């Protein structure tokens, strides 16, 4: 399956709209007065969860590409990554504005003292350079190799994101564990492929001698 350029841009437009659904969901819940007793908590958590979802969806592109042979999927990856950043930004702003109401002293204390906030904040900071270097011009300026190296930090960001989730739950770690397993699978896929590739190259090298 190989979409032609028109199909690809239609696909991109559809994906763009689809990625806004989690945000629209909040709008709908607010409109129908269904945000529950603690709307700020619900909004923060919803946006946090979708940040992590988008990180994992972005990380799923490469394995999916190799498994299906649909190499055009890579053309959708930047948008997915930017959406992860978009939801992280909204999640962070919800915390700054709705939750803390810009009480800077309390925010700084939170970031310094509460491991789950420290991890969330670290993950967010690390996402900024990735978002800033996501366009083609930046890829060119950095050069493919350095760009790839920089963007490998997304693996760490996802790991830190899962740790953030793990530390904030009170007792039941079922969901953080599920995310950890999914992330493990996505990263494991890459490690396996890398190992296989190495072996193939080694074999080719020794054959050529």
């Amino acid at each position, binding site marked *: 399956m190989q979409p032609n350029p028109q199909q690809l841009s239609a696909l991109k437009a559809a994906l763009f709209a689809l990625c806004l659904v989690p945000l629209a969901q909040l709008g709908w*819940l607010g409109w129908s007065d*269904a945000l529950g*007793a*603690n709307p700020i908590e619900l909004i923060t958590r919803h946006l946090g969860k979708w940040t992590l979802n988008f990180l994992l969806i972005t990380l799923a592109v490469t394995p999916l590409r190799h498994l299906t042979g649909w190499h055009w999927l890579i053309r959708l990856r930047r948008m997915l990554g930017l959406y992860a950043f978009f939801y992280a930004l909204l999640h962070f702003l919800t915390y700054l504005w709705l939750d803390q109401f810009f009480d800077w002293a309390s925010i700084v204390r939170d970031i310094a003292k509460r491991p789950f906030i420290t991890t969330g904040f670290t993950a967010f900071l690390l996402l900024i350079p990735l978002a800033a270097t996501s366009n083609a011009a930046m890829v060119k300026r950095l050069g493919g190799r350095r760009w790839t190296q920089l963007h490998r930090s997304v693996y760490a960001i996802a790991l830190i994101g899962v740790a953030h989730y793990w*530390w904030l739950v*009170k*007792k039941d770690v079922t969901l953080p564990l599920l995310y950890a397993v999914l992330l493990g699978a996505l990263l494991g896929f890459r490690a396996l492929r890398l190992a296989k590739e190495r072996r193939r190259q080694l074999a080719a090298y020794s054959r050529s001698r």
Partner: protein
Amino acid sequence: MLIKRPDDIAPSEITPRSLFGRRRAFIKAAGALALAAGLPAETWAREAFPGLQKSAFSTLEPPNSLRDIASYNNFVEFGFGGKSQPAERAGAMKTRPWTVTIEGLAHKPRTFAIEDILRIAPLEERIYRLRCVEGWSMVIPWVGFPLHALLKQVEPLGSAKYVEFVTHTDPATMPGLRFSYLEWPYTEGLRLDEALHPLTILAVGLYGEALPNQNGAPLRLVVPWKYGFKSGKSIVRIRLTDKEPKTTWNLAQPEEYGFYANVNPEVSHPRWSQEKERRIGEFFKRKTLPFNGYAEQVAPLYAGMDLRKHY
């Protein structure tokens, strides 16, 4: 959700009981994305307690709506997966027949049927603040009576120093019991003088009607100057002892949840500050008060104690 300062919400803006049903009907009709949906029908037809006595202990602050009080709960026997789970699941719990056994260091230990408990003392309306250890609070118009009235019936021995509260366990209706994060049954405890304090009540209702199951029907403890987890729900056994009871959250995470658990803005939870709280329904956080605003009544109970150590 409008943005409002805490002090300018007129009582007329608070959702009255009668609107609760209409708003829910609207949400249902709108086919809501189900986050807030799913209160069992049981919430609607509950026993009414007419002619309640007013109490001087009641706060004048406007109470939260029944909808908020009955849809945003921690009741871990019904799951650890969010505040809406208890409302979705607790409808299955059977609250009749119900007995409460009072045992241990007492002259006349005995088992009470819930119907008899309801007749022990005149039922009062007690409008109390509730502060959860997680950093939110509500104002709840409980219906209940002082715990000391019940304890008096069994005549505690002089050697009794503590009171232990054991709550209902029914694996058939309580999916949370499958998790071994906590030791079941959920058990809480008070010092005897705390238990006998006139602010400490057994609640059987709220907003003039029997408790919704998710709020701890048919009988729960309410200790308004302590974090909410101290106030055990759906109590089946009360034991008078001479040793500090082993309490559930304290056993699970002793560095996070102490035996006393008095509301104290100066002692942070290891993972978050307790200086402020969000009153459900309000936008801005407010300062948390020592002993949840009941210091005048209860601070003397702790005279000379280091409350940083005994958190």
